């Protein structure tokens, strides 16, 4: 973790991220009506130029992606990614058995944007509430046949440091899996560190 934060601050950040991930899983569970299991969030501090490599090591294209930029007290990029075969099955779960296969294909984009909106905003909302700040987000955008590099690989190489959070989730009954990835921008990393320090100070 960053040398700029102490062990207890690292623990606090991990705990807040765990809460946020739990809230996202809860929202997805309510939406699809079945248990959602999660990996322990992987939290890394990376150089900007390392992000695409890191993501590519975890996720094989083609992927279906829902992407949402966020700003306010902290800014960055969040992304919900599914292996392509999984996304239509998830849409079927959300819309119910009465929807025809053609309708599922037609509604895939809107359905996955709604899933992304719910999962990502549950995550960001928990961070905002715990830190006592406001975080706004753009409307979700959608990509098919994409790679993570399409989303995160565009930043110019630099020496900036980015917080990279990666969580795997699985819908047990349907064997559907996906990934939540969030990066905090270089510009607001120091703001995030300050928020963590204040959070810890309030607890001690």
């Amino acid at each position: 973790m960053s040398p700029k934060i102490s062990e207890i601050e690292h623990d606090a950040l991990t705990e807040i991220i765990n809460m946020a991930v739990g809230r996202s899983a809860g929202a997805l569970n309510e939406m699809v009506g079945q248990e959602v299991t999660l990996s322990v969030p992987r939290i890394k501090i990376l150089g900007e130029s390392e992000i695409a490599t890191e993501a590519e090591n975890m996720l094989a294209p083609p992927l279906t992606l829902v992407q949402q930029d966020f700003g306010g007290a902290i800014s960055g990029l969040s992304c919900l990614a599914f292996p392509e075969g999984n996304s239509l099955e998830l849409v079927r779960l959300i819309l119910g058995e009465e929807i025809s296969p053609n309708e599922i294909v037609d509604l895939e984009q809107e359905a996955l944007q709604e899933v992304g909106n719910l999962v990502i905003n549950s995550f960001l909302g928990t961070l905002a509430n715990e830190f006592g700040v406001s975080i706004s987000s753009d409307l979700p955008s959608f990509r098919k046949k994409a790679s993570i590099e399409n989303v995160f690989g565009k930043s110019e190489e630099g020496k900036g440091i980015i917080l990279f959070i990666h969580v795997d989730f699985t819908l047990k009954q349907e064997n559907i899996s996906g990934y939540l990835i969030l990066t905090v921008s270089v510009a607001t990393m120091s703001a995030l560190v300050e928020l963590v320090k204040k959070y810890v100070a309030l607890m001690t």
Partner: protein
Amino acid sequence: MTGTILLVDDSKVSRMMVKRVIAEIIPEATIIEAAEGEEALAKLAENHIDAAILDFHMPGMDGMMLAEKMKGTNPSLRITMLTANIQKEIASRAEALGIGYIAKPADKEKLGPFLKP
């Protein structure tokens, strides 16, 4: 019991899911849909609406701004925000405006008390 409900959300899928929940709570309800704020205001002006369910995050006018405009013309209209944005700030703004706040996804337990107070 609420008869005619205005459902405002830019996501067709979200509207489909909410309609399913409304039908479970009030099978005979009439649901009028709008995908954005201006369309919602026009439908409010054209119809007798008993209650309105608004998404917060929409292109153009957001749900809070829309609720303010609706309250301006229909002060007694029952309105709730239905949003994925779980930030306390949004819930507080809804409370200050005198409208409800429900976190997505909608279900019978959450929407029931609003639709059948």
